[in-house]
């Protein structure tokens, strides 16, 4: 992460191993009836924004917590003409992102990319890309714990009743506690939101910096939780409000520094420690955004 070269997309700095479609797998790994079941669940999720729809989760060839929910959603919506981008911690070149991209190249033969603008499906866990999304794109989120009320109430029957009756007052207890202990709302990721003025939703562990990108987004947002076997969705152009208090309004993270590589002040920055003496620098968490800005600054075409 210390040199600009490390920030280039994988395809640019390592010879890409040729990935060919493996004909022994059905298109997208899952069988057709499973994909249809998932699509039905997703249609229901889109019809009721923010509502958690159960589905019959399948065993996937990777452990729970590595994105089994997101992979199943992606597998069920993928078509032969789709272009897939996978990001992990904002980066296109981490192990998880590289392997999920390779997985779909192998079992579906689809084109993959690191460019947000070229992608039709973007699977992610921690970030929404900095480049604005457009109509027709689909974000797929990998969700660890789908139930926003779980910390408040261990019983599933009770949380479902609370959703049915829109009894969400208790969620503010957590924010109250933050302000009481830290002087401000200290929740920084997985920040609870109300979707379309109705359902309380967990936006997967994205930083609250990305919450405003959910609001009225032109892209479709799909969320898949593999362990808990739930999908939910935010359709395009849907209102997504972050919880707050009248006298402590919602605010996103801010940094004193600019990105050390591309100079961006408007993107989400990671703090990187460079040596044993504690030297540190801030760099963009979205590697694709950062690389494009660097290339543009050098006068090259992005």
């Amino acid at each position, binding site marked *: 992460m210390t040199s600009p070269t490390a920030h280039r997309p994988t395809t640019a700095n390592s010879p890409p191993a040729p990935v060919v479609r493996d004909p022994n797998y059905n298109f997208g790994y899952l069988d057709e009836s499973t994909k249809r079941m998932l699509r039905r669940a997703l249609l229901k999720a889109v019809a009721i924004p923010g509502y958690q729809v159960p589905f019959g989760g399948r065993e996937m060839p990777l452990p729970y917590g590595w994105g089994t929910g997101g992979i199943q959603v992606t597998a069920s919506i993928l078509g032969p003409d789709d272009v897939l981008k996978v990001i992990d911690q904002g980066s296109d070149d981490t192990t998880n992102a590289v392997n999920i991209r390779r997985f779909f190249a192998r079992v579906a033969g689809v084109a993959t990319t690191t460019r947000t603008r070229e992608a039709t499906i973007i699977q992610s866990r921690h970030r929404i890309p900095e480049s604005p999304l457009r109509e027709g794109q689909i974000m797929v989120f990998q969700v660890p714990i789908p139930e926003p009320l779980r910390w408040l109430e261990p019983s599933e029957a009770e949380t479902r*009743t609370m959703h049915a*009756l829109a*009894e969400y*007052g*208790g969620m*503010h*207890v*957590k924010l*109250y*506690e933050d*302000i*009481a*202990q830290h002087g401000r709302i200290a929740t920084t990721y997985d920040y609870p939101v109300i979707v379309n003025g109705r359902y309380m939703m967990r936006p997967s562990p994205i930083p609250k910096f990305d919450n405003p990108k959910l609001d009225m987004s032109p892209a479709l947002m799909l969320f898949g939780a593999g362990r808990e076997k739930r999908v939910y969705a935010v359709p395009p152009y849907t209102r997504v409000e972050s919880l707050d*208090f*009248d*006298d*402590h309004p919602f605010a996103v993270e801010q940094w004193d520094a600019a990105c050390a590589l591309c100079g961006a002040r408007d993107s989400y920055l990671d703090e990187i420690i460079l040596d044993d003496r504690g030297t540190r620098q801030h760099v963009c968490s979205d590697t694709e955004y950062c690389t494009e800005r660097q290339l543009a600054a050098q006068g090259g075409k992005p």
Partner: protein
Amino acid sequence: MTAARPLLSARTLTRTWDGVHGCRDVSFDLYPGEVLCIVGESGSGKSTLLQALSWQTPPESGSVWYDTREHGFVDLAILDDAQRRLLARTDWGYVYQHARDGLRMHVSAGANVAERLMAVGGRHYGQLRSSASHWLQRMEIDPIRLDDAPSSFSGGMQQRLQIARNLVTHPRLVFMDEPTASLDVSVQARLLDLLRGLVSDLGLAAIVVTHDLAVARLLAHRTLVMRAGQVVEAGLTDQILDDPQHAYTQLLVSSILQH
């Protein structure tokens, strides 16, 4: 104490767990501002009756009527779940024997007290905090403890905090299940004193389940004596304790140490 209309009425209320144990055929009226004690030995159906009255477990037969603010005097059975749950967290309070059943032990005292206000739409942190502080003071807890977790409180303080948490929405009726049973004697006396003051200051009605006749003597206007799921005697507390009619009540009263 008598108003024109009761606050709550039970009519031939029955709730059994196995056809035998529980409470059977209980009828009474509770008027606004009145404190009713339900006494009886363990297993006599006191707690079951309290759960059925507060609709935590719906009755098998009979009815519970309540003078709601929005819909007037209605049979609780005709309200839907959402209306009953709203009633339970605004116009009612429920105090458990063990404070940890009624508190969130991992969030601060202030958040515990303010929770009900947030549940009905309180969204101003400063106002929530000053209400919480006010209620702690009212329950004789130093407001400096506002941000401390209830687990750092003594048993008596936890019980007072639980009561504060219930009273913050100004309920008109509080259900209490053995509120003093798990406290030592001196703490019990202080809590009873505080409760008696609150009930008369706020005009609260209360239904208190206890096996301790001293609690009934101190708090209650009227008392129901239960045995084997049925009410065997009902009336003014002093009358019942000083001139018990039913053989079982006589036994209960005579079992208290006389000074």
